[in-house]
Each structure stands twice: as structure tokens, then as C-alpha cells.
């Protein structure tokens, strides 16, 4: 595998039909293939936590997939997760992408700062939709995220029913160049082959998120 499995975030966050057994399979599949990170939604945490070992880092989604709630609601989601008693390692919070695209950059910046502050010591990654943003907008979001103290950026929700364009290597390259090593860039959305994983890593992604990771690694 050449360590590529360590660069993958295995996820079921965007799957409509997810059961407890699917969550167990996610964790066990990650462990079986040497993947060290998974991304799930809040109600999956109890099953994930009783299945995983210490070697698996868990990212949990906030306001996934729309991100279109008021700032106070998103902050509350984070506070609730922190008080829930369920263990997790990182937060992937969906930005109010539509509002940002409408020109409310200051609101978006304030939202990032509030969510990062609410998360405290937990690393926060902000989910954007890179493929619908100009290069200038991508760079601005990266700068805002870095200023807010984020650990990284996830390039897309990867939620196919929205019919939104998924990011390509060129989007990842722009994000990685803007981040200049200050933020980790996670490619996400429509990554269903080893070739796409490698393309994203070559473009500068630090990690690649995929719902198909187990099958990809299985060959």
C-alpha cells in the first residue's frame, strides 16, 4: 500500500442508508485496511466508539451537509458534542457556503471563529465547496480558516444529492498553495478509485476522504 491507507479518511457521512452494522463495518474496514481516520455523523458515535480501537481517529460532522444554520445553532452543535460523553478526535464543520458566495465573508469569518472557539482543544476542519468557488474565494476561505485557528479544510461535503460539482485536483492544488502548509487540505467528493486518491495527493491534499476506501484498497 506504500502507506497510502494512512492518508485516507474512510467515511459514511454522506450515505443515506446507514445502520449500526454499517458503522461497525466502517470501523472494522478501516482497521482491516490500516486506515487510521474515519468521518461520521453525531448519532453514529456510540456505535463507532464501542467498535473502534485507540488507533482510529474519529472526525464528527457539524451541520452536515447543508451548513445552512445560524451561527448559534452550529456553535451549539459543537458544545453538545463536547458534552455528550461520546469520544471523538476532530470536528468537520460545514461552512455556510451559500452565504459566503452571497458576499457575506465577514459573517463566514465570524462563524469560523465562533466554531473554533467553541471546539476548544479539538481540531476543527471547515468543509467548503471548493468546486463552486473562484480561486480568489478559495484563497480567502483558507485565509479565514487559518485566522480562526482551524486545523484544516475539507474541500467538499461530498454529498452527491445536492448535484454540486465535486472538486478536482486543480481545486485541491489552489487550496494547498493558499494553505502553504499552515492548514491540512482534505480532498472529498466523488473519490472512488486509487487513481483519484493519488491525483488528489499529488495535487497537495494531505488526506483524502472517501466512502469507497475499503473497496479501493481491496483492489
Amino acid at each position, binding site marked *: 500500500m506504500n502507506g497510502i491507507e494512512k492518508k485516507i479518511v474512510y467515511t459514511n457521512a454522506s450515505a443515506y442508508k446507514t445502520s449500526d452494522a454499517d458503522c461497525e463495518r466502517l470501523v472494522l474496514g478501516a482497521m482491516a485496511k490500516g486506515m487510521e481516520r474515519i468521518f461520521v455523523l453525531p448519532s453514529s458515535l456510540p456505535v463507532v466508539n464501542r467498535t473502534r480501537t485507540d488507533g482510529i481517529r474519529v472526525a464528527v460532522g457539524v451541520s452536515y451537509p447543508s451548513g*445552512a444554520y*445560524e451561527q448559534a445553532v452550529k456553535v451549539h452543535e459543537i458544545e*453538545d458534542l463536547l458534552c455528550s460523553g461520546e469520544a471523538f478526535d476532530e470536528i468537520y464543520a460545514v461552512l455556510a457556503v*451559500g452565504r459566503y458566495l452571497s458576499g457575506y465573508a465577514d459573517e463566514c469569518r465570524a462563524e469560523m471563529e465562533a466554531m473554533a472557539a467553541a471546539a476548544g482543544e479539538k481540531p476543527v476542519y471547515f468543509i467548503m465547496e471548493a468546486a463552486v468557488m473562484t480561486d480568489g474565494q478559495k484563497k480567502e476561505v483558507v485565509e479565514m480558516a487559518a485566522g480562526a485557528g482551524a486545523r484544516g479544510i475539507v474541500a467538499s461535503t461530498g454529498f452527491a*444529492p445536492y448535484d454540486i460539482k465535486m472538486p478536482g485536483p486543480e481545486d485541491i492544488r489552489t487550496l494547498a498553495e493558499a494553505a502553504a502548509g499552515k492548514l491540512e487540505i482534505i480532498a472529498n467528493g466523488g473519490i472512488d478509485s486509487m487513481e483519484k486518491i493519488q491525483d488528489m495527493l499529488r495535487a497537495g491534499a494531505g488526506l483524502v476522504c472517501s466512502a469507497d476506501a475499503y473497496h479501493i484498497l481491496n483492489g
Partner: protein
Amino acid sequence: MFDWSKVKDPVIAKRLQDEGRAFVARCHFGTQGVAKTKQDVLDTLQRLLDSGFMTLAFDIEANYARMVQEVTGGKVPLHAAVSYPMGRMTLKQKLYGLQSMLDLGIGDTCVCIDWQAIFSGRYRDVEKEAAAINKEFDGKFLKNAFVIPATLMSDLEIVEVCKALDNAGVYSIKVNPGTKLGVSYEEVELINRNFPHRFDIHPSGNIRTLEAVEKYLELGCKIIHTASSLEIVEAYLNRQFALYTGGVQS
């Protein structure tokens, strides 16, 4: 948009307006999604206002509620969803989200039950979650529908989930969230057959024609979610106009 200029008879015009108003008042219409911009929302709102009719609610993402209220002076009833579309937030997050809807003046909402509990057969958890939401918010919204992904469920799962919602005291069920999951007549018939006169069923997704809306109305549904509301009411008015005039100018 219906061509009102072809209606010469004021009696027929009045009748069509009344019928159109009543028809559209059963429909939800709007625009939602992660990348919907202010302009997307305003354009969709303008289409609705230009129609001369008002849907039961204008469906938006919650973070555009203040803007729409400012633009319309609060005269357009709003709908926004909580934990949409998969319901995989925690109960506390859903309760907070619902309260925020009330605080924003959103009178019509829907909340997704935890689909992971549904697909795991944890119907007691479905019941507990729905009951907790109902206890807190029953009667506080004009409508608060509970969303189930019927299209992805077996008949048995649909019945078991409806039993859980019945036990929880739920009234309104939204059958499918849209977002690529469309309702079928069979799903509505199944719920009606097993729970006669029990639920207020809101079909959603893949409803694009007058015939489909009328079929759901025949099945007893009173509220329809369709992004094609304005095209459908136009088809309805054209048909009614033809009915009253034989298709010629009156």
C-alpha cells in the same frame, strides 16, 4: 405562468383565482441546498410573488429566514428543516435547532428522525426521539412533520416506524426528504392502509405533474412538497379554464 389576459369573463377569472389560491395553498415551494445564494433565494421568491399566489410555505435554508422576512415584511410563511436530510444529529441538537426555528419566526418545519436508528431496526429509539421532540414542540409550530426515508425502507420497516411515530403521538409524516429521494403512491397507500385516518402525510420528492399532485390528494394527502408548484398550478388553471370555457375565450 398562467396567462390571465385570456380570461375575459370576470366571474370565471374570480373562480380561477379562488381555485388557484386554494390549490397552491396545499403546496410547499422554495429552494434549498448547501450552495444556494441570496440571489437564488430572492429569484425563487420573486417567481412565487409574480405568480400572484402564495404557497402554504416558502421552503428555505434557515440562515436565509431573516433576509426573506425583511424583504417580505414577514408576510411569506416560511418552512425550514432540522437535521436534514438524514437525521443523524443528536436529539439535543435537534431540539435546539427546532427552538431556533421558532426564534426565527419559522412557523412550519420538519425534522428528520435518526435514519440510523430506522435502518438498524431500533424502533423503540425512533419512538423515544419522536416523543421527546413532540413533548417539547407539539402545538408550537403550524406544522412539524417527521421525515422518514420511505423509499429506502421495506414495507415492514415503514409500518414499524409508523407504529413508533403513532406511539410517540406524531401527527404529520413527511414521506421522503426530496434530495433525490422521491415518494411513491404505494408508500402513501401503505401507511394509509395500516394506519387509516391516523397521519397527515406530506409526500415529497419527484412530484412534478398535476396528475401526481391530484393522485396524492386523492390518497388523502393535504400537503404536497414540490419544486414544480408554480408549473403545476399553471397546468391546473389551464385545465380549469378549458373546463369552464371549452378552451375558447369567454
